[in-house]
């Protein structure tokens, strides 16, 4: 009961943007790149240019002046630059219906994502599937997703303290000592156990991301939020584990992971109220059980 419409998939003609919209949110994707382009909160009447993409850092195996390698304990990229998983336009399929709409994105043969908007929801669900990370370079890959927005955040972002109070984080700064920045990326990474957000106080906008698992996160530029979603490393960091973080999984090909992020654009004052229900749903999911139905529904009722 579905219809596939091929709109000239392989042509390079400019394509119209793709939007998903419900009562509360408008999500726009660039028709030419296939990537997220903007978010709009219809109720609060705010919007933001937000792009999202997947990148990876190359892991460090140590340098002559510092032999510390990136490993299970240590995150240490060998340079500040990130590499896109795929810089070219990505494959996109759109599914629309009354219960939910979704945009299926294929970034590469090892990174895919489905962006869903459910009827009535005020957050957007990003379900990513990543792996097996290719074994094609001697350095390992540390895969991140990065949301880049036009929020003027002034180098400040917030991460949760073990799912509890939100802690203020400032780029290249520690509140209790003078920081000597030797690791411009890793030195600004913080634990994200449930959420990360950044605020544009001038324009009263807050971009929030809820995670379904603990990961590392940061904001290395104004308006940016990035989260490390997967790693595959080929050197031990000599901190005790004695093994490189090179999980092959039970299938032997490399670990495939699937996770969900919930993204919300809201005013700073209303954001906690908007984010909290989904946070509770992640931390305390419903219990579901199924059983065979041997009679017709009317009889059963």
């Amino acid at each position, binding site marked *: *009961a579905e219809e596939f419409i091929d709109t000239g998939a392989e042509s390079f003609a400019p394509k119209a943007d793709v939007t998903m919209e419900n009562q509360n949110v408008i999500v726009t994707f660039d028709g030419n790149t296939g990537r997220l382009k903007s978010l709009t909160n219809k109720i609060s009447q705010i919007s933001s240019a937000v792009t999202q993409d997947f990148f990876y850092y190359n892991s460090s195996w140590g340098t002559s002046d510092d032999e510390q390698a990136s490993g299970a304990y240590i995150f240490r990229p060998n340079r500040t630059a990130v590499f896109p998983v795929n810089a070219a336009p990505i494959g996109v399929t759109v599914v629309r219906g009354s219960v939910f709409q979704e945009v299926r994105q294929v970034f590469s043969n090892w990174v895919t994502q489905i962006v869903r908007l*459910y009827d009535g929801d005020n957050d957007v669900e990003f379900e990513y599937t990543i792996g097996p990370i290719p074994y094609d370079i001697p350095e390992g890959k540390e895969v991140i997703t990065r949301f880049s927005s036009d929020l003027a955040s002034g180098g400040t972002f917030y991460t949760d303290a073990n799912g509890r109070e939100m802690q203020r984080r400032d780029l290249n700064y520690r509140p209790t000592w003078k920081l000597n920045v030797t690791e411009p990326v890793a030195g600004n990474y913080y634990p994200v156990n449930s959420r990360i957000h950044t605020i544009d106080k001038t324009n009263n906008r807050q971009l929030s991301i809820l995670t379904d698992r603990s990961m590392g996160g940061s904001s290395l530029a104004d308006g940016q939020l990035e989260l490390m979603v997967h790693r595959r490393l080929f050197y031990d960091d000599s901190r005790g584990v004695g093994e490189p973080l090179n999980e092959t999984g039970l299938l032997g090909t490399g670990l495939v992971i699937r996770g969900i992020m919930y993204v919300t654009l809201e005013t700073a004052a209303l954001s906690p109220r908007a984010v909290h229900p989904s946070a509770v749903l992640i931390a305390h999911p419903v219990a579901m059980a199924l*059983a065979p139905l041997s009679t017709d529904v009317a009889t059963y009722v």
Partner: protein
Amino acid sequence: LANSEQLNLAVAVLQHHDGVSGTSKQHVAYDYARRVSEGLSECETVINRALGDLTFVSGPSVTEFVQCPLLNVSICAMSETSANFTLVVYNPVGFARAHLPRFPVPFGSYAVYDEKGLVIPSQVVSMPFETQRLRAEILGEEAAAAANYLLVFAVPTTGFGFATYFVNRTSGPNGEDVALETAAVEKIRS
């Protein structure tokens, strides 16, 4: 005589800093996973019996309940093999909310009923390629081919409450799919 003690013990072991941070050796990580899996399996039985006691005066015996811990990769034996099934949802927090499960199903058209027997909105979509690939890796090609669709519907529950839903396949006289509502799929770029 299932109980939650086994999961309790498994989580206690996992409080070790290697379990929390993911810095264990691989064989230890597998052992953590085994302990949690066995604990969760016991707890499934506990929850199934509790939901059975809450829900059914008559009907399926409580031992017929199953859960689908691999639903995140769209694997659920009950929904994949039964054209009709019952879903019971329990909300463990104190305020009302809706959850939107996605069940892998073999057919392209279904009707979903609430506990009053009224049809509620539902949507069937084709299974994404990546999900089909994951299913094939876990189940094998043949078993994975049993379900090519995902059935999605909202299941609102009250605070500390539960709700029952019924899923029926809808079909025409020749067994063909007859959807109550169709979803449009547009392939922008392959």
